[in-house]
């Protein structure tokens, strides 16, 4: 069958792939969107988990191997995928979260949408570690500005030097436990501001609804009031008629010609198990940082013997994730509180951006604080250790009978928690590469991870623990559990665990030390682009997705221009 040649083949439908598809199709290009997972729509009754009661699940929302963040989480994927293993080298313990569905991980992401600041693009100038980006905040700012208005994000203009202002929707009011946090932070001179989340607290167009405060964005929103790549970018792009969606299509490699340029992709149709090919003038990889690196490494040819874009052995290197640590406290003043509906928007309404930029600390780079607590909907696990806080009140823990009902009610919503998310230093030796022997169910070599934290991240985690303890105590809290010490790396999360992995195809002006140019275009093949977090040189303490989206838009503008100029 004679096959159409697309202007662009986009691989992966998460943040980067969704934005690429939307912008390229709007610019009039023909696009094939190739996604390894199935079609997904949170408003489809057969897939809906939003607004379900706990008893609609036999396990009451408990996690499963297939839904590690709970039975109602809108993730098809997780830490383990049937038929798609990955491996760790030596004592590496990298955790790799993958989604297999239209929209990728943006179906269940936390919607925390933070811009990078001016300093975040040239950290090497400041502390001598890692590398600078080849671009600065001023290059990305116009795209952040457009992104805010196209997709929507609530927050507030604060005039902070490294947490830039934007075009924000108004913030939701803080909940009671957040007021406790605000007072605590202020008493210690720690800044606290409204959260910044991609949730519509106000209408932005006629297609999407306005948040009705169910706190369930992790289940994906049926009225599309939160950002998912599928609901906000891909459905409209599909309606435009210039996009063909290939779902359940697992890309094996990018195919190339004698000149080393891409001719399209080879994929496996998961429904039939058959190999198939698509032809395109250009290819945009957005399969997530590690998956895109894997596709490149598996795209070997005479011209690209070590894999496409890998002539300098940089694909897969500089892999880095955010650091993390968390702590919680029992707030006695919240005992026996009034019960009312405080679901609010999903997750936090307030947060603390990094506040010690100019201090002399024993670690580089910063972290921010995410605040949790409140009277959430019970699901599996609620009522475990029902009256453990009795221990703090000199009362007996345990027992049975109707008195337990009073305990449950009494302590409901009396917890305040903090989670830190920090910047790590990208390392040449932290990487993913092809495992020499292991393949997935389609025979495609899988990734092997080799990743170790350095003293920078460990020292940072110690500082996180001190900050969290001080803040929780200032809120009147009794901090729960033991403070993790040096033997536990101060509670530092495992590499990959925060699910912000980036850096595997980093951008740069020097083709010897980077994989793509500043537009995510491969140095080794000018019609191949990377639109996910792979191109990050460093990731700031800001969650990556808002920057992935802005860079993908910037790249799309460049790609269209390059095509118009016949350079591709």
């Amino acid at each position, binding site marked *: 069958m004679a096959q159409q040649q697309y202007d662009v083949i986009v691989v992966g439908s998460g943040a980067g792939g969704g934005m690429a598809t939307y912008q390229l199709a709007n610019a009039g290009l023909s696009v094939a969107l190739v996604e390894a997972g199935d079609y997904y729509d949170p408003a489809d009754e057969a*897939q809906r988990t939003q607004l379900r009661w706990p*008893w609609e699940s036999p396990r009451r929302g408990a996690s499963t191997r297939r839904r590690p963040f709970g039975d109602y989480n809108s993730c098809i994927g997780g830490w383990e995928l049937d038929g798609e293993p990955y491996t760790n080298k030596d004592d590496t313990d990298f955790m790799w979260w993958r989604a297999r569905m239209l929209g990728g991980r943006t179906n269940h992401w936390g919607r925390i949408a933070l811009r990078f600041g001016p300093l975040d693009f040239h950290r090497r100038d400041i502390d001598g570690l890692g590398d600078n980006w080849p671009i600065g905040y001023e290059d990305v700012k116009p795209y952040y500005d457009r992104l805010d208005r196209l997709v929507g994000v609530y927050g507030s203009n604060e005039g902070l030097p490294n947490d830039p202002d934007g075009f924000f929707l108004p913030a939701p009011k803080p909940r009671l436990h957040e007021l406790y946090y605000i007072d605590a932070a202020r008493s210690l001179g720690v800044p606290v501001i409204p959260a910044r989340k991609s949730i519509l607290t106000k209408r932005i167009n006629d297609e999407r609804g*306005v948040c009705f405060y*169910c706190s369930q964005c992790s289940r994906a929103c049926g009225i599309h009031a939160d950002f998912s790549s599928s609901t906000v970018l891909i459905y409209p792009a599909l309606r435009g008629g210039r996009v063909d969606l290939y779902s359940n299509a697992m890309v094996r490699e990018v195919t190339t010609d004698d000149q080393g340029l891409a001719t399209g992709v080879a994929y496996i149709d998961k429904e039939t198990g058959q190999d198939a090919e698509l032809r395109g003038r250009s290819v945009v990889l957005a399969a997530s940082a590690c998956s895109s690196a894997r596709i490149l490494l598996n795209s070997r040819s005479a011209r690209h013997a070590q894999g496409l874009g890998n002539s300098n052995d940089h694909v897969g290197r500089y892999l880095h994730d955010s650091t993390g640590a968390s702590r919680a406290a029992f707030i006695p003043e919240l005992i026996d509180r009034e019960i009312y509906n405080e679901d609010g928007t999903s997750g936090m309404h307030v947060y603390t951006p990094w506040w010690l930029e100019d201090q002399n600390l024993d670690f580089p780079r910063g972290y921010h604080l995410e605040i949790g607590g409140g009277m959430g909907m019970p699901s599996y696990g609620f009522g475990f250790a029902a009256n453990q806080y009795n221990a703090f009140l000199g009362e007996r823990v345990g027992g049975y009978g109707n008195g337990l009902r009073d305990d449950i009610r009494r302590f409901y919503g009396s917890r305040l928690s903090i989670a830190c998310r920090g910047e790590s230093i990208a390392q040449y030796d932290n990487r993913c590469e092809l495992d020499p022997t292991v393949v997935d169910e389609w025979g495609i070599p899988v990734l092997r991870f080799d990743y170790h934290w350095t003293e920078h991240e460990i020292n940072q985690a110690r500082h996180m623990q001190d900050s969290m303890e001080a803040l929780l105590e200032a809120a009147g809290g009794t901090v729960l559990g033991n403070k993790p010490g040096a033997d536990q790396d101060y509670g530092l999360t495992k590499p990959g665990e925060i699910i912000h992995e980036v850096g595997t195809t980093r951008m740069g002006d020097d083709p010897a030390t980077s994989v793509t140019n500043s537009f995510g275009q491969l140095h080794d093949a000018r019609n191949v682009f990377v639109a996910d977090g792979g191109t990050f040189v460093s990731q700031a303490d800001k969650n990556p997705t808002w920057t992935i989206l802005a860079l993908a838009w910037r790249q799309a503008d460049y790609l269209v221009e390059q095509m118009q100029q016949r350079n591709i």
Partner: protein
Amino acid sequence: MDRRAYLQSLFLAPLAGSLIASSARAQDASTIDWTRLPSSYSYGRTEAEKQTDAELFAESYFREHELLTIAVLCDIILPGDHPNGGALDAGLPDFVEFMVKDRQQYKLPVRGGIAWLDNYALDNYGADFIHIEESQRLAICDAIAYPDVDTPELQPGIAFFSLMRNLTLTGYYTTEAGIRDLGYVGNRPNVWDGVPEAVLQKHGKQYDTEWLNKCVDQSRREITAEWDDDGNLIS
């Protein structure tokens, strides 16, 4: 789907878990009965998940005697003499059975825990836990319901009772009756507009004007957002 149609479609869905009042604290444990929970559910599952759940429901793990013991324990932990019903009304034995099959790590502790309980009852009162007097059962529970008891030979029983209490409470508070008992009033469309004034006062908290100025004016939420060139919201 627009918001209205979407929300309507949600509330047409029947709510499972209605109550059939059954036994209060059973006198004769062998006749104990409880509300049966459904054995098939529909809540946005993939084909693979449907199959796994069907397999779990088809699996039988507990013996009759074990299930009855679980039921008696659930009933002691959360009795039925309460306006919102107890563990048996809420179908807890079925829930515990499902969770133990779903979470392999519970299988042995629950089976072994029941056996420990029976041994203990036999040694002290001459019969299985469910076949001794109610007062004797409660005496055993008094001995194992509190983790601060450090008698070495009671430790397995204490660990088992804690597990059963966790499963019973989590099972109960995730039913309609439990949600009512707790008073949770969310999981429905609404408009969050801050902590009620009386609650603020009780806790000595307040919203300062500077912060409130950054917050959504809920009367204007349906007006499409517009900004000036500096990012100030003007609509």
